[in-house]
Structure formats: structure tokens, C-alpha cells
């Protein structure tokens, strides 16, 4: 992981200026929409994000963020309201959603208990993060951790995009030697079955899945044959679980219904 400055003050966002500008443009469009006469806007409230203004300056080696840049995205509040005019980052080291205030450019840690999930949109990709502290999985994930959803179905694949401290490194700067925290990505994958069972999965091989689904060995074999035999990327892993989901027929509609309401 490359060297990164976890400097979140307003003045240090120059590398993201193009994103800020596009965000501003988006904001301007939205503002103009909202400024129209009432007839064009049926009675809907404008949801708002809350959070702590973040002014702490730290320097690390390695990025704590899922994407190393601001991404436009959507935040879903626990009320179900959606906010989509903010630039977002996910910090895996502290497991927090960070947003940039669209007008003041302040960096803010979103109040986690008021957020249900969020979507980061980057380079045509959409990464969905959900916090499973509500609904049928609330007993499983009590901590309110943000999980990236790779596949959601009767068999779901979630990943906690953790970033861990891997030590400290000394670097020589113009101001003299500096001790920096070394950060490393440490994702943790979970298979969640529709009956509520959760399995931590370290390796994506047949043996691991045979243990999780001992009665569906044939389906596991077939899913591996249909997918990449050794899934190395998240895309491959998601595809494998998706295939498995198609092949195995579960019979727990009520649980699914609850799951879909998340």
C-alpha cells in the first residue's frame, strides 16, 4: 500500500479537486431543483446527515480508506431516507463513514447509529455497504459494523473491509524523523445463510464450502466448475456465491422477506 497522508483538513483536498468540483456541480443542480416552485416538488422532506467534525491530523503509511479518494454516493439513514449529494469515503481502520460537507467542505464522521448503509460509486462500480444492526441479522452483527455486500441472497457474501495496524515505520521528512503508523488491508469475509447462520471464511476453496454446506456438496462442486476454480478477486468470489445461491434451493421465505426489507 502506498504512502498516504491521513490529512483531512479542508486545505489538503487539492488532489480531489476535480471530484469536489463535480460534487459542487451536482450540488448546484440539486439546489436549483429544490429552489423551483413548489408544484414541481411534492411534499417530501430533505433528509440530513449528522456527525462529528473531524479536525485531527494524522499521518500513516498505507491508506485506512476503502477508496483512496472521495466518491460520490448515497447514504441511507435508519429512517430509510436517502441522501445522495455528498462525497464519501469509508475508513476501514475506524470502521466509519466519512463525508465531506457539500458547502463548507468540512470533513465529518457520520453518526453511525443514524446510518443504515451507504453506496460508494467509483469508476462505474457501486460498492454497497450495510450495517446489519437491524432486522434478522441484528443478533449476529451486534457491533454495527459496516459490511460491504458482495452478494445478497439465500447465501450472502459480506466483507468487513478492515484495515489493521501492522506496525510503525520511521520516515525522514524535512521536519526531521517521523514515526508513522503502518496500515494494511485486512478484509474479513463472511458467508451468511438464510437461516441466520454466519461463517467466517478465510479461503475460498471447495473444502471451506463443503464445511459450510455439507449437504450440498454437488452444488458446491458445480458452482466452482461454473466460476473461477480459484477465486482470487472479490468479483470472482461474488460470482461463486451467486452461482451457489442459484443452485441451492432454500425454503425459508419469511427470513428472506425480512432480509429484503433491510
Amino acid at each position: 500500500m502506498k504512502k498516504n497522508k491521513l490529512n483531512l483538513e479542508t486545505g489538503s483536498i487539492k488532489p480531489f479537486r476535480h471530484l469536489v468540483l463535480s460534487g459542487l456541480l451536482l450540488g448546484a443542480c440539486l439546489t436549483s431543483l429544490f429552489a423551483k416552485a413548489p408544484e414541481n416538488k411534492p411534499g417530501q422532506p430533505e433528509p440530513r446527515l449528522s456527525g462529528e467534525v473531524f479536525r485531527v491530523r494524522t499521518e500513516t503509511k498505507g491508506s485506512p480508506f476503502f477508496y483512496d479518494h472521495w466518491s460520490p454516493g448515497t447514504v441511507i439513514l435508519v429512517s430509510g431516507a436517502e441522501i445522495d449529494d455528498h462525497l464519501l469515503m469509508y475508513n476501514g481502520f475506524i470502521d466509519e463513514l466519512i463525508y465531506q460537507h457539500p458547502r463548507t467542505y468540512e470533513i465529518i464522521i457520520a453518526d453511525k447509529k443514524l446510518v443504515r448503509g451507504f453506496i460508494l460509486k467509483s469508476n462505474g462500480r457501486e460498492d454497497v455497504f450495510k450495517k446489519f444492526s437491524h432486522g434478522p441479522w441484528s443478533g449476529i452483527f451486534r457491533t454495527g459494523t459496516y459490511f460491504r455486500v458482495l452478494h445478497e441472497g439465500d447465501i450472502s457474501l459480506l466483507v468487513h473491509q478492515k484495515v489493521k495496524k501492522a506496525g510503525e515505520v520511521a520516515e525522514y521528512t524535512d521536519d526531521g524523523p517521523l514515526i508513522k503508523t503502518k496500515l494494511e488491508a485486512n478484509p474479513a469475509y463472511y458467508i451468511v445463510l438464510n437461516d441466520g447462520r454466519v461463517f467466517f471464511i478465510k479461503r475460498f476453496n471447495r473444502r471451506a464450502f463443503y464445511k459450510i454446506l455439507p449437504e450440498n456438496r454437488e452444488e458446491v462442486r458445480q458452482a466452482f466448475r461454473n466460476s473461477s476454480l480459484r477465486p482470487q478477486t472479490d468479483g470472482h468470489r461474488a460470482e461463486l456465491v451467486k452461482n451457489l445461491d442459484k443452485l441451492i434451493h432454500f425454503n425459508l421465505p419469511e427470513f428472506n422477506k425480512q432480509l429484503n426489507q433491510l
Partner: protein
Amino acid sequence: LGKLTANIEKMKRILIILFLSLLLVCAGPLKTFARITSFSDGPNELIFLQADRDIYVAGENLFFTVELVNYPTTAETLSEIAYLALRSKHGVIERISFNMDQNRFSGSLYLPDTLSTGYLELICFTNWMRNFDEGFYFKKTILVVNRFDKGLNFIEESNLVENQTELKIYPESGHLVSGISQKLLITTWPETPLPFGEIIILSESGDSIHQVTLNETGWTTLDFFPEPGKSYYARIRGIEKNFVFPQPEFSNHLMQISQKGKSILIKITINHLINETLSIVVSRKGKSLMEFLLTISGLEPYIMEIPVAGLENGAYEFNLIAQDGSVRAKRNWFLDQRAMARLSVSFNQPAFRNREKVEMVVQLEDSGDAIDWVNISVVNRTGMKPQNLSFHSFLLALELLEDVKISPQEAFRLLGGLSHEEINDLFIMPLFPEENLAIKSGEAKRYYRETSHLTLTGRVTEVTNGKPVNDARIILNTPDTIVNLLYSISNGNGFFNFFLDSYYDNREVFLTPDPGTIPGEVKIEVYDKFKFITPFNPTPMMFFPGLRDAIKESQEIAEINKAFGISNTAETQESMTPAEPVRVFSEAVFSINTDDFIPLDDLQEIAREIIGPWRIRRSRSRSTHSLVSQATSNIIDGVPILFVDGIITYDIEPLLKLNSRQIKNIQILNLEWKHGDMHFPGIVAIFTRNEEYRTLDLIPKPVRVFNPAHHFPAKFISPDHSKSASPNTQPDLRQLLYWYSGRPVVQNGSALFIWHTSDLHMEYSISIEGVTKNGSVIKIETQLVNEEK
């Protein structure tokens, strides 16, 4: 010279009389109703309300159905929330709001049994309609009689004929043509309406020729044959005054119009031998659409047929014009080509006795069509006016709004309840104004179309000069044990809007201006949705003989039902779970219960002794406070924002006197915090034991408004007497036997409706209205007789 001066004086007098007459003629129709020029800027939605009756006894339920329709164009979204007010001359008595389902709602309104006898008005509207003239609201007058009003003096008072009543006579084609039978419109409407007035037509010798009774609105028609050379006059029974007929003309044309299938028939009859070329000009909204030349010779009537295909529904003007340009005859005609559904209604037996099961089958004749939705009411006839506005006539009136250029409210009052034929009878009189009077200024729209949330709209102005304040942040809180907050920014006109979900139902809300966004002292005004500009001036209903006994019977029924506690309603379940509040923060950094500590005398002492990060400094002039940041351990720049029982406040001074006995809990969020655009240099939330916010002089002073919840009205239920176990100990005295609104289950083109008769022996009127899937109008009126056992 003296003679000349006298002549000039005479001429002057004539001119003045002529001028005044002209003024009267012009002002007559204008003064009674407001006219509007165009509906293109109208609300795009109009509302119709059908109540089960017109006359009620206080303590009864009024059942109603509401339909929201597009007019004149299709809006992208229609409102989903509507309001209903019940008001007297003195003010609003009941106010409810409700969510509509597919633009429809059916419910009930309880008429308090403390109401005194008098006329009340139902007003139905949407928030969006508030942007426009109140003429767009739906209004309906009802009569409520108190249970203990045994005198019922209002009946005599209402039936008094007033001496200033004016009667006008309009011949069918503009002139009274002698020697030909023609239709006359005899009317006291619109200037001095005399419903049910008795009119006697007399010849010049004083012989009575005809006797007619005016309808409920105060007009009627009469087929009349004026003899050549004779003149006529009319009298109103009870008034010593003659109303002179127009003089029959010896040589003129009679133009009669009728509609036959897909054609309009124009019949021109003359009473003298002539050979003449004329033209018929058909126009609409002042624009000439077509012209036909015709030559009339001899005494034979000339008949012409115009196909209506391609013509829109609406009001047309037909003028018979001579070659010299003079108008020989004119007639207005309402063209209505809407398809009426053909259907049959059958019952399981021809007549019914007490508590018998009624099975009514409604069958569409067109097998390729089906009933889409239908409203059915089976109600005691004595509780209804003879002419009642139905959904069908509401739609008819809608067709005419723009042509006749009267406000919807007036159109429904005047034209609603009339059939196509009756409207064309009324169209004998000139309804098309020469000049239009706009009633709506081009004011900016300020009220939202409500779909999912109730809105609260207000305005913020400077106290010193009344100028609107732009960009003021108005904060809305409701007292609670959590810190909740909404805010709205005022626009250039000072208007602000809040969208309130079910969390705010039946709660007081407090509006506080953010001092950092206002120029000085400001005034916040909240617009009351139920404040009406137009006063309620009821026109007394005219009553028919026997009504007194019918009302007395209704009073007895209401009394018995009251004694037995019978309402024939079932409460609907409030299935909606209250929405979550919009929280400023989810969890405080510190939460201190004062009960855990020894009693302390004031807030400064509490902060000093038990809340480390909160610093309060008092001086003679003013007190300040600050918070030490949990994140940096430094004092946060700026003054922390205070909340008392959930209500924001910006000055600590009035709170300093609060002590441990008054304060239950204090929550501290000693972090720099953001909520939307609002910046909080820390938050201190104080929760008291006994709603101290009510007595504290918070600065700035918030404006307090109550936000009533949606109405979940009781639905009508018809008792099921078929159950053998049904006890016979409770009377069943219902004026309303059945009330249905919705999409019925249709099998093989027929729908079955079941109810039971009551213990009352009276005539019930069955009204079936609705629309088929193919868009045809369903309208049937029939009767059901509940015979004595």
C-alpha cells in the same frame, strides 16, 4: 327655448335611466359570483365530496366520500392528503386531514351533540389548492338540528318569501315570438334566488294561464304559447308585485336546439311569411367555429343537423344572423358526449320488511366492460335535498367551468345536481359574460402538493418594518426526551415550509429562528390551513311539507341511538407505526441523571460539580458557557447550543435558575457537530421533570403550534341481522342503510352488494355512481321501500 330645455332635461333623464339599467344588467350576473378568465393557472386538481345526507341531527355521524380529480390538465402527481373542515358562521368547528388511496377516501365525521340548530358548511381542499382562490375548494352546506330543538322555527323562517325577490323571464331564443309554442326560463336566480317559489302567469286581463313552482335553485322552465297582440305578466305567490313578460314579437325567428345521438338539431320556425337568407354561426369561448348559410321561405320550419363528431364537450353559442348583421335569435347549448354505462339493478325480492337481507345486483349490459369503482348510498329520502350534487353532475359542471367562467365552487352549487337537459334549460339565459373578471392575482405559490407528509408553512418578517426575511433558518422541535430537529430556510418572500411525518402527529411543535441568520427581531407567522378568507353566509334551504315531522322523527331516532350507544361505525385501525424522529445525534458523550447526585441549587452549580467539560461563567451583564472537546481536550470555539426538553434555545440566562429538583437529566455532546448545514460547537440537552420549557422565557421566544394527526375515521357498518344469534334487544334505527365506496368484486360483469333493512319504515333512495373500466359514467337512482312488518 323653454320647450327645448325641457326636452333636453327629459333626454338627460332617459339617458341616466338607460345608463343605470345598463349598469344593472351588466352588474347583475357579476355580483353573484366571481368569474375567472382561465384555468390554465388553476390547481390541476379539484376535489369532490359526497355526504350521505343534507340534514342531520347533532350527535350523528356524517358519512362522506372524497374524490380527487385532475382538472383541467393531467398533473404529474396529485395530492395524497386532503383536509375537511366543518364550520359555522362563527368559525371552524371540526378539522380533519386524511390520506387518500388512489385519489379516493371514505370516512365519517362526528357531529358533536352540543351543536345548536343551524347551517354548517363542509369545506374540502388540499394543501396545493391553498395556492389558488377559495373558489376552487369544494363546499357543501348542511343543516344540523339539535336533538332538543323541538320548535324547529327555522323551517318557517326559511320559507318566508322576501318582498325584494326579482323574477326574470327569458324566451328560448332571445325573443318572445308570438304564435309559436316555445320554452321560457323563469328565474329568480342568480340575484334573488327563491327556491320553490310559486309563480302564476297571467294575461293582460288578469286571467291566470299557468302556475309553476320554481326548483330548489329558484328557476324553472315552461312551454308557453304567446298569442299575437297580447301581453303577459307573472306574480310570485306572497308578493304584491307584477313581473312583466317581454312583449311578443310579430315578425321574428325562433331557434330551438336539441341533441339527438351524434347530432345537434337546429330548428328555425318563423311566424310570418318571408323569403330570407340567414347564417347560423356556432362559436365557443368567443371563437367562431363554423358557419352555415340557409334560405328560409314560407312558414315551414327549417331543420338542420350538425354532426357533433370532432366537437369537444362544452358550452357552444348558436347565433342566427341576418344579412344586415343583426342577431335574430341566439341560444347556448351544452354538448355532452360522454358515454353513460347501460346497466341494470335487480334485488332478491320486490319489497323488504324489517331486518331483511337485501341483495342488490348491478349488471353492466356491455359484456366487454366492467365496473371500475362505484359509490353506493341507501339513505332516507327526507334527509336529502331534492336536487343533490352527485359525482356525475360534478363532472358535468367541470366540463363547463371554463366556458361559463365561474368558479368551480359556484359551478358545483349552481350546475351541480342538474342533468344535461336541465343545464341546457338554464342555458336559455345568457351565461356567457361579455367581460371577465379575474379573481386570482399572480401570487407566487407557497404551498406544496402533499403526498407523504403534512406540511407546515409560515413566513418570517422583520418586526420593525414587516419586510420578509430571506435565508432565515427556522428550527422546528417538538418536546421529547430526545433531541429532534428540523430546519427550513426562508425564501425571498420570507416563506418557509416543513414536512412533518407521523412523529409529529398530535404534538406541539416549536419554531425558533436561528439568531445567526436573522437581521434582528423577527416575527414568525404560521399559516393555518383551516383559516378561510371567504365568510360562510348560508343561503337557507327551502323545505318541503312534512319535513317538520321527518326531522322530529330523526331527533327521536338520534335520541334512541344515543341512549343505546349505537353508532353503526367501526373504528379503523391506525396501522401506521409512528415515524422515527430526525435526531441531531444518536448518543451523547455524557449523560447525567441529577438523582445520582446531591441536590444542587442552580445550573452553574450543577455544571461545576457534576459535569466536568461544561463551563458556565456568570457576570453582572451576561452569562456565557463553553464545552471542552472530548476529541481534543481543548475548549470548542463558539457557544454550545442548548436544548430544553428537546426545544432549541440560544441563551443560557433564562435556564440558570434550574436546579436539581427541576432537572432530570443532562446530556452533553462535547464534540464539534454538524447536522445538515447547521454547525454545533457542542450540545447541552437538558430534560426537566415537569415540562419547564412551558414556563421558561426562552430566547429567542419560539412560536408554538399544535400539529393535529391524520384522521382515521370510523367506517360505516351495516348490522348483519341474518345471524341467528343476533340479539333483538337492540333497536336498529338507521337513516343510512348502506354506504359503499370502492372497487367491488365483479363476476361475469355483475357486482353484488348486501345489506340489511332496519326497523324503520320509510322510503330509501338508492344512488349508484361510478365509472366503468372503459370510462363510461355509471349513474342510477332508484328506490327501496322498507315496509312495516
